[in-house]
């Protein structure tokens, strides 16, 4: 089967032999696919293509086996100029998708979420907030539905001024005597995460802790990109 001109982002690439690349791609219509770009490093046809991360391409490929064969690639939009610090944050976004999304499962909304997140990230908006919205939406789109706006025990709406206990498996409840895997969290954070209006530092930190706790359950292993960013942040704080 030949797939024509599909909007794609390259999530990861690695060298294959001297002249070829293996690309792990997020495509708009076919989900995550792996492609081999044969002989591209010596083929003049691809001289003006960077095969870079975070750039939108239109890719055509032949899909016979698990590994598709790239036959055409062209820039789809104006190129994104990627600030280097943001590139490291992008590694985290890419690694999350590669870890949580199965291959060949079409996800139009996820493609749009990825594109929207990159746009916000590279336009210098607060990455601590952008990442929380990305994590929340990713979990919801992949079916790990997380309840944020109602008390899962009583069914009542979440109130901003109240404290809740968020249990990983079920969601928030006003019954603070409950125990098990979870954490205490303010109603304000839950509501702001739900309607994407996080602004104050304490709510951003609470949202981060909540999503880290939930993601830890589904990711099985710590993400390498997160470790890298932590070492970077540590060095940066010392260089100031």
């Amino acid at each position, binding site marked *: 089967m030949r797939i024509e001109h599909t909007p794609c982002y390259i*999530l*990861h690439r*690695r060298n294959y*032999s*001297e*002249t070829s690349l293996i690309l792990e791609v997020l495509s708009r219509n076919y989900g995550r696919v792996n492609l081999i770009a044969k002989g591209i490093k010596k083929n003049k046809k691809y*001289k*003006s*293509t*960077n095969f*870079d*991360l*975070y*750039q939108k391409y239109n890719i055509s490929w032949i899909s016979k086996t698990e590994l598709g064969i790239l036959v055409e690639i062209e*820039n789809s939009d*104006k*190129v994104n*100029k*990627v600030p*280097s*610090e943001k*590139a*490291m944050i*992008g*590694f985290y976004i*890419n*690694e999350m998708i*590669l870890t949580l999304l199965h291959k060949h499962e079409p996800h139009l909304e996820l493609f749009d979420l990825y594109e929207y997140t990159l746009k916000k990230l590279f336009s210098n908006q607060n990455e601590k907030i952008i990442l929380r919205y990305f994590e929340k939406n990713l979990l919801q789109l992949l079916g790990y539905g997380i309840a944020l706006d109602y008390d899962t025990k009583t069914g009542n709406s979440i109130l901003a001024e109240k404290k809740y206990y968020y249990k990983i498996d079920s969601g928030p409840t006003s019954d603070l005597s409950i125990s098990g895997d979870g954490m205490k969290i303010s109603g304000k954070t839950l509501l702001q995460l739900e309607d994407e209006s996080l602004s104050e530092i304490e709510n951003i930190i609470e949202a981060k802790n909540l999503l880290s706790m939930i993601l830890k359950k589904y990711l099985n292993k710590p*993400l*390498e*990109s997160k*470790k*890298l960013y932590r*070492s*970077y942040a540590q*060095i*940066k704080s*010392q*260089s100031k």
Partner: protein
Amino acid sequence: MIEQSLLEKLVEALRCMPGVGRKSAQRIAHYLLQRDRDGAKHLSLLMTDAMEKIGNCKRCRNFTENELCHICLDKKRDKSIICVVESPSDVDAIEEANFRGVYFVLLGHLSPLDGIGPDDIGLNQLETLLNDKELKEVILATNTTVEGEATAHFISEMVKKNGLEVTRIAHGVPMGGELEFVNSMTIVHALDDRKTI
């Protein structure tokens, strides 16, 4: 199962070289057997010797059979400037441009998705070099890919922490290049980094 002949084994072994497929491997094997057996014997001896003895320079991680490579040992080199590159072939490329400082070879770049972190590319070793009192400037000459840029950015913070000057090689249109064949990202960088003349 029929055992492979020595010739077949030789052809297979020659394919470990970059850019050598089955046809080229056959051609090389036939040429050496027909016309240059002495050359091939010399090559095989040298190959064994090189593979056993060549390691990495203790200071810059470039290939060498000694503890320190010839560049690190060269007293005429300007030790106040270190150029950080991704691979030994990048050292050769920069040497051709007559650079007179010294190098640090990462032997890769940061790539968390491949599990390659700061210690895997020798940044702990580079950190030690940054404490050298003679050192004044670090030039970051990693590749201009996203991973290369991220690596350069990471190292730049390490260098700044040590209060040294850190510079990045310029990005732009290659000499002798025609604009219509240059990719868009290169033009974006060339325009951003334009200079007054």
